[in-house]
């Protein structure tokens, strides 16, 4: 049997539906199966990375061949960008699932938790693989509906309220996206991304097309929590169980928000000055306002959630600078550098923000509270958590041996060389504020006077939680290696190539 991207969707879906059937009768089945599935996905991903990489691997669902170069089947497209984001998803999913084995014991209904987790993974993989705009919508809904349920998993007051808010805003975003899909279909009479791309490259910018683009920016911007649309994110991400927070903040907003924006605006639409300017401005706003909002937070996970908005701003400005340069036909190497910085920051953010949320979960697991005012002196009781948090804090605030430094450096260099001095200055400024914010976090949680000794609930963490945290901090260091050309060629460059050569996506797919 040859390699097929369809397995990325089939396997987690199978898991999601096996768990309620067999897990009902066999105890402990759900944990083992979820960990095995996510592990399989990671291994499969790496295998795929090594073997099938020159051309985009395409699966035509149902085996319908194209007629007169017009695609009929639903395409599953596995190219550099998809591979890169799939790796992020599967890695974080595996570590979160492994962490959850120890963490989730305090909740009932474990079956539902793991089934929903598998469903969410399947949905995100589907979004990333789909080569068909309506299927992007369908898989996106699968992922976000599972995440609505997971945010409300604790069924306490705060979780329910956060979930309701998240559902209303996320639902409006979904409706806007559906509207945009309908408008696109109306203009092009096709749903296949490559086909749409070919038709749009020939045509002119009509008002309806601009309206579609606005709808898509608002819809996916809501999903990615860019700053004017961010209201749901701090609530939802701080109320979910910690492994899910890691998934939501680390992967979901990237897979369903940023990835879709990148794919649509680089490969499908013609890049225009207005769109790239709007995206860059939204990114810069997210970067600055997110970190300013994070300063005043005393709830640990809320602080991290606001930093998510800010760090996503870095990703977006990296990509936005690339878009601006491509649009004005500037130096392609600088564009590639900026996009590489953005994408690199994406995987870095997934790792260190995931790790920080897992740490927050560990603190909550032991101390029973998330309020920084009531914590302090935890370093003595939780050596693993405190050292991993230190690593993650250094990574997020851009201190050299860790990965965050290199990606931010790439973005700033690209901004300077592309003559966007204001953006570079803002990025540096935000980095310092982030550093201050995380110094506060480390101090109040781990090194301040000892307030929490009497309140500790348990004295040791489960092995699985420690394992995930340590693995993540090691990966945080290892990811810096991606700056070395050899590793960059394997992982980062194919993804960047897909975005820089904007029309290649369509030309490669349309002949198949």
């Amino acid at each position: 049997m040859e390699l097929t991207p369809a397995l990325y969707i089939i396997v987690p879906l199978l898991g999601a539906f096996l768990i309620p059937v067999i897990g009902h009768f066999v105890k402990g089945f759900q944990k083992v199966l979820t960990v095995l599935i996510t592990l399989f996905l990671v291994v499969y991903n790496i295998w795929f990375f090594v073997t099938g990489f020159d051309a985009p691997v395409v699966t035509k669902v149902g085996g319908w061949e194209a007629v007169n170069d017009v695609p009929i089947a639903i395409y599953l497209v596995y190219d550099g960008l998809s591979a890169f984001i799939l790796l992020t998803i599967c890695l974080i999913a595996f570590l979160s699932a492994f962490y959850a084995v120890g963490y989730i014991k305090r909740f009932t209904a474990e079956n539902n938790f793991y089934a929903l987790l598998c469903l969410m993974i399947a949905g995100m993989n589907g979004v990333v693989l789909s080569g068909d705009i309506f299927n992007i919508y369908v898989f996106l809904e699968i992922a976000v509906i599972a995440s609505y349920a997971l945010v409300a998993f604790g069924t306490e007051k705060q979780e329910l309220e956060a979930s309701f808010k998240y559902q209303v805003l996320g639902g409006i975003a979904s409706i806007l996206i559906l509207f945009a899909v309908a408008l696109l279909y109306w203009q092009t009479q096709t749903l296949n991304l490559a086909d749409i791309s070919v038709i749009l490259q020939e045509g002119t910018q009509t008002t309806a097309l601009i309206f579609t683009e606005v709808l898509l920016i608002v819809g996916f911007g809501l999903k990615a929590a860019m700053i004017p649309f961010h209201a749901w994110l701090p609530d939802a991400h701080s109320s979910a169980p910690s492994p899910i927070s890691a998934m939501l903040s680390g992967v979901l907003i990237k897979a369903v928000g940023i990835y879709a924006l990148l794919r649509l605006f680089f490969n499908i639409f013609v890049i225009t000055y207005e769109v790239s300017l709007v995206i860059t401005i939204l990114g810069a706003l997210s970067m600055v306002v997110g970190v300013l909002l994070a300063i005043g937070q005393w709830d640990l996970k809320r602080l991290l959630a606001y930093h998510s908005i800010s760090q996503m701003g870095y990703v977006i400005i990296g990509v936005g600078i690339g878009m601006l340069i491509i649009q004005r036909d500037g130096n392609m190497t600088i564009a590639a550098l900026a996009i590489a910085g953005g994408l690199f920051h994406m995987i870095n953010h997934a790792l260190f923000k995931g790790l920080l949320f897992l740490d927050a979960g560990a603190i909550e697991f032991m101390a029973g509270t998330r309020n920084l005012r009531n914590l302090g002196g935890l370093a003595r009781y939780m050596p693993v958590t405190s050292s991993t948090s230190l690593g993650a804090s250094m990574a997020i605030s851009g201190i050299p041996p860790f990965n965050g430094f290199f990606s931010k450096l790439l973005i700033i260099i690209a901004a300077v060389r592309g003559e966007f001095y204001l953006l570079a200055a803002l990025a540096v400024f935000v980095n310092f504020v982030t550093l201050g914010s995380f110094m506060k976090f480390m101090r109040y949680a781990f090194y301040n006077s000892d307030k929490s000794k009497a309140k500790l609930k348990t004295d040791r963490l489960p092995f699985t939680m420690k394992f995930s945290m340590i693995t993540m901090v090691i990966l945080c260091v290892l990811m810096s290696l991606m700056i070395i050309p050899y590793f960059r060629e394997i992982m980062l460059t194919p993804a960047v190539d897909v975005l820089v050569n904007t029309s290649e996506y369509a030309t490669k797919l349309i002949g198949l």
Partner: protein
Amino acid sequence: MNGMSLIVKKVTQLMSGLIFMYGLYIITHGHLTPGGGFAGGAIVAGAFILLILAFGSKVISLRTEKSQTSITESLALLIVIILAGAGLFFGSYVFFNNYLPEGEVGELISAGVIPLYNIFVGMEVSAALLTIFLGLVIYKEEVAS
């Protein structure tokens, strides 16, 4: 939740089986006439919901029913995925392949695997709608008590 009046109960007894049969008709003729798994499944779920609404929760124990329906739902989806994934192993090795003989257009047993998809999608939709209904009813009873 108490049942409804005598008239509704008797009419339900008369009609529920027929509604169920009609849903199955829509499902099994999905590849010949408009309709199919989703529409038929909704009708089948309607038959059960009518029964529960008319007779109240005393006749049917909601919680066991709910766990059964959610297991049925997962099972049906599992079968759909296995049917779809089986295409990877038969014939031309593609996902969602129609690998069974297709027969003659207009016959009841034709069109390869599509009737099978219809049947299991119908099963899944009916079980899912019933699960949603039962879940909301159970919440309501919890809130009321």
